[in-house]
C-alpha cells in the first residue's frame, strides 16, 4: 500500500465567465499554494475560454452558514414582504410603475 499522502491544501475556484458577470463557484482543486492554484485553475476550468478572471481561496478560509440553522438564520427576511415591489397595490392605469 502506498504511504504517500498529498499535503496540498484544497482551494475553491471562482470564475468570471465574461466581463459584466459575477464570479461564480465552479469547483475545487489541490495546490501547494495560491499561485499554483491559479495556474491549475486555468488549466482545469478554462480549457475552452470559460473565464476572463479567476479567484482562488483556500477552502479552510471559507465561513459558511450551516444548513441546520436554515430557518432561524434566514428568518429575518422571511416576514418582510413589504421589501418586495409586488407588496404594493397600484392601479393598472398608472404608467411607468
Amino acid at each position, binding site marked *: *500500500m*502506498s504511504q*504517500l*499522502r*498529498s*499535503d*496540498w491544501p*484544497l482551494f475553491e475556484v471562482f470564475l468570471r465567465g465574461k466581463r459584466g458577470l459575477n464570479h461564480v463557484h465552479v*469547483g*475545487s*482543486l*489541490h495546490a*501547494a*499554494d495560491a499561485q*499554483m492554484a491559479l495556474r491549475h485553475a486555468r*488549466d*482545469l476550468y478554462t*480549457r*475552452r475560454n470559460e473565464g476572463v478572471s479567476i479567484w482562488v481561496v483556500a477552502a479552510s478560509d471559507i465561513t*459558511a452558514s*450551516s*444548513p*441546520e440553522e436554515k430557518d432561524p438564520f434566514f428568518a429575518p427576511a422571511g416576514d418582510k414582504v413589504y421589501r418586495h415591489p409586488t407588496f404594493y397595490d397600484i392601479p393598472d392605469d398608472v404608467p411607468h410603475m
Partner: protein
Amino acid sequence: MTAVDEVELRQHFEATIAHDQRIEPRDWMPDGYRNTVIRQIAQHAHSEIIGMQPEGNWITRAPSLRRKAILIAKVQDEAGHGLYLYSAAETLGADRADLTDKLITSRQKYSSIFNYPTMSYADVGVIGWLVDGAAICNQVPLCRSSYGPYARAMIRICKEESFHQRQGYELLMTMMRGTTEQQAMVQDATDRFWWPSLMMFGPPDDASPNTARSMGWGIKRHTNDELRQRFVDMTVPQAQKLGVTLPDAQLRWNGERGHYDFGPIDWQEFFAVVKGDGPCNSQRIEHRRRAHEDGAWVREAAIAHARKAVAR
C-alpha cells in the same frame, strides 16, 4: 442527535428528493446515500483517469499534427473530467489521496472498458465513437443527479464529451474514405469494441440489485438495460452511415417494440474483466501507480517551496 431529530432530518431529505431538488454538500443525508454517491463518483473519476491510457498510447504515433493536437486535447479533457469528479467526491468528505490510494491498490473499480488494449489508430476513432458515445448515453441523465456537485460536474463533462465523440466519428469517416486496409482497420476496431461498449452499461437489470434504491434516491435516472437499448438504437444508423457492420448477427429492427433487438451479451467476460482478468487490468493499475509514485518528489518539492515562501 436525538431519534426525533433524525426522523425530522430524514423527512426533510426525502422531501427534497421528492420535489426533485438537489442535495447540497452540507445537507444532512443518510449514510447509505453518502456512501453510494461517493462510490459512484469515485468509480467514475477513476474511469476518466485510467481512460487516459488506452488513447495516450497513440499520442506519439498520431498520423498527423492535426490528429496529434486533437488527441492530446482529448486526453487532457479526460484528466480534467477526473479532477472535476474527485472535487465533487471531496464535497462529501472523501479524501483525494485516499481515493488515489484505493484506485492503485484496486480497492475501488473503474469502467471495465479501459482494460481492453488499443491495437491501431482506428481504435482511437472507435473509442470516441462507441466508448464515448456510450459514456454520453450514461452521463446525460446524470446531469439531473440528485447530488448537486455531481450534477454540475456532469454538465461540464457532457459538453466536452460531445467533442470526443465527434472527433472519433470524423476520424473513422476519414479512414473509411481511404484504402481497403484502412477500412479493414475500422471494421476490426468496431468488432473488438462493440460488445465491451454494450457492457459499459453494467449488468442486466435483473442482476443489478442496487438499481432500485439508486433510482429512488435520484442518483440513477434510468436502468442499465434502458440505457443500453437507447445506445444501440442511436448507434445502428451511425454504423450504417459509416459503412461498418456491427458484429451481431441477431441485430435487427423490431417494429413491434420500436427498438433494435440485439444478441446476448457475454456476461462471463464482463465479470471476469471486472474481477481483474481483462487483457490490460494489471498494466493499467501499474502505470497509474508508477505515475503517482514518480510524481511524489514534485508534490513534496512544491509544498516545501510553499512553506518556505510563507516563512520568508
